């Protein structure tokens, strides 16, 4: 692959490099000789402060030999490695090749470790201490920015260490989430629900489903309007894992569990994004991370109800 658009620049570089190197040799040869008057004290010719002068004593010959050796080295180097214009050098080295060789070496060294765990199921991998150590490091480097170092989430980012799984909590469901990502989309439902007062009532009804503090009058008024929500979230707010509709009858809230937050959700909808890690982490690392996340919540499944 040519680095230059025209042949002219190729030649320009080659000529420039070779002339410079050879010029160094030429200068060295001519500047290492000097005409002197024998017997006179050799100074550099400058005086400072009236009478301060500097001797011009010869330098050791091995310095000059080293200079010539550097010229030889430079020419040898350019013959072997890229440097003279488009030439690849006789060793054919390129930084892209070096990168690919390093990747291959890393794969050969670490590949078997990952392969060992990739062959197991997510649930079994979660039992392996070595896998969990790798998984924790991967988690802290990639997932903790959103989900927190302790995996307990933040506003907009689910708590991965609880038992509540919007899309399903099996090992494979978690692994799919990591590999393919998730789009947590709630469309704005205000129009379907009715007036702002209706939205407020529905919000209180939703709070009543989990036994949280709510206004009972508003909740009873909102119960009829809940039909608009039940289509996705289930009749009792049990959730709809198939489309990623969260369980509404527990005290776990990704966007906030106050009446104000729920009203906002109904009015404006939500769009949570879990990125797809397949191309970034790859299959094997995603498997380990999924297993780690699974291990954080591998408690016996109790039906939701809260603390």
């Amino acid at each position, binding site marked *: 692959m040519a680095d230059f658009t025209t042949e002219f620049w190729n030649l320009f570089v080659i000529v420039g490099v070779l002339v410079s190197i050879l010029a160094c040799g030429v200068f060295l040869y001519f500047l290492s000789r000097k005409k002197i008057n024998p017997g006179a004290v050799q100074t550099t010719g400058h005086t400072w402060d009236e009478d301060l002068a500097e001797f011009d004593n010869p330098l050791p010959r091995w310095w000059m030999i080293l200079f010539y050796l550097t010229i030889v080295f430079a020419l040898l180097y350019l013959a072997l490695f890229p440097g003279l214009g488009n030439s690849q050098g006789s060793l054919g080295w390129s930084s892209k090749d070096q990168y690919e060789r390093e990747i291959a070496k890393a794969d050969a060294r670490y590949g078997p470790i990952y392969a060992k765990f990739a062959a197991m199921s997510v649930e079994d991998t979660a039992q392996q201490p070595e896998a969990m150590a790798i998984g924790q490091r991967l988690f802290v480097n990639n997932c*903790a920015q959103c989900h927190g170092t302790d995996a307990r989430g933040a*506003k907009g980012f689910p708590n991965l260490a609880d038992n509540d799984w919007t899309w399903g909590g099996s090992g494979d469901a978690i692994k799919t989430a990591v590999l393919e990502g998730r789009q947590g989309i709630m469309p704005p439902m205000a129009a379907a629900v009715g007036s702002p007062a209706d939205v407020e009532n529905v919000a209180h009804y939703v709070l009543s489903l989990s036994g949280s503090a709510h206004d009972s009058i508003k909740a009873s008024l909102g119960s009829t309007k809940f039909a608009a929500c039940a289509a996705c979230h289930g009749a009792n707010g049990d959730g709809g894992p198939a489309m990623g509709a969260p369980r509404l009858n527990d005290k776990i809230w990704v966007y906030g569990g106050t009446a104000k937050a729920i009203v906002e959700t109904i009015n404006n909808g939500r769009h949570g994004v879990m990125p797809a890690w397949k191309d970034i982490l790859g299959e094997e690392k995603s498997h380990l991370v999924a297993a780690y996340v699974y291990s954080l919540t591998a408690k016996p499944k109790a039906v939701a109800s809260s603390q």
Partner: protein
Amino acid sequence: MPEPSTPPVVEQTVLLYAPGKKIYAKATRGWFNNWRWFFVFITQAVYYLTPWLSWNDRQAVLFDLEARRFYIFDLLLVPQDFIYLTALLLLSAFGLFLFTAVAGRLFCGYACPQTVYTEIFMQIERWIEGDRHVRMRRDKELSLLARLPRRGLKLFVWVLVALWTGFTFAGYFTPIHELGQGVLSASLGFWQWFWMLFYSFFTLLQAGFMREQVCKYMCPYARFQSAMFDPDTLIVSYDESRGEPRGKRSRAEDHTASGKGDCIDCGVCVEVCPTGIDIRDGLQYECIGCGLCADACNQIMDRMHYPQGLVRYTTLNALDGVVQEADIRRRFLRPRVLIYTSILLVISAVVFTSLLNRSPLTVNVIRDRGALAREVEGQFIENVYRLQITNKSHEAKRLIIEGNGLPELESSGKTRLTVDPSANVTAIVDLRIPISIAESLDKGSHKILLQVRSEDDPDLVINEKAAFFVPR
């Protein structure tokens, strides 16, 4: 304008890079020579023997670069202790300035590895090839082939010493017993061989062949000595007022009557000089201050029944008569020396106290920034912290982590843990305050302290500053 009667000057073309003059340094005996060899033995005893010492089932002095742990007897240093290396460099620098200001190039003449190894290699050369006049005669009279056996033997011994030196050097970084077994069973990796041979090669090159060229052309010490000396610095000097005019004389002659100085112009001071200079020309940058010329001259003075000290340690002020010889020592207490001494004492005291009071634990706190703060079940505001704890002692430590600094601050997560010696542990800790308290605080960052304390030792407490973030 040249006058018509002077003959024209014939110019010559000379090479600005001249081949070096070969130096055949002659052996000498005396006080300074004894000190020189004393330092050779002391420094090399420490260098060669230290890697073989054990401490608590491991090598006493080991710089484990791969695991990033430096062991010096009981002391374990981790990368966070890099400041001690800076302190060591400061101590070395000021120590150097101090004793150079007092007595010149003591380091060069007695303690520098270049001078020490050159001494050793030169002595081996004298044993095998003979002293100065023998070597000069052989070089002039014998053919290369005839000189080869002795030279080969000398080279062989040099290579052995160099290899042992390189092996010892590598033994500071890889446990030397393992290294030894690796060499014998040929099971060492490429890099271990590389570094041993690299160091051996350069020992051979510098001490065997380069010798004084290092001091003259490579080392900066010679060039900035003029910044560290002053007219009260003790330097090896030729007493011109006593020695001049120099000249040969018979033993029985009364030289003062015939107007001659004490210097008999024997040239012994030049013959013994390892850098090949004539000290009678005065202070020169090549002079490494080894004092061998003083030893040689003193021997001659003894034989001539003159007082010793024609070449001796004295100061420029004393030679110029500004200061009396007897007062030289008093001049040691001049400002330059006193200031260097105070700085050195202060830095030493600081380093020493710091090392004594060093905590066996290093604690680093990294708070979550992606998930700054979270609301937990409508009841708490929570922040997440990651602590890295390194144990720099020799016993395992059982630790408790707790947050302090805000009302009703609770800690959960990995708050109890054990750290093994020279290991480090990551602990993920959540700190939370009730929402009611959070609402009464200012929004934003609050300073708190994360405390790590030992269960077994109530005195071992570390408080690290951190911040607690209250959102909205």
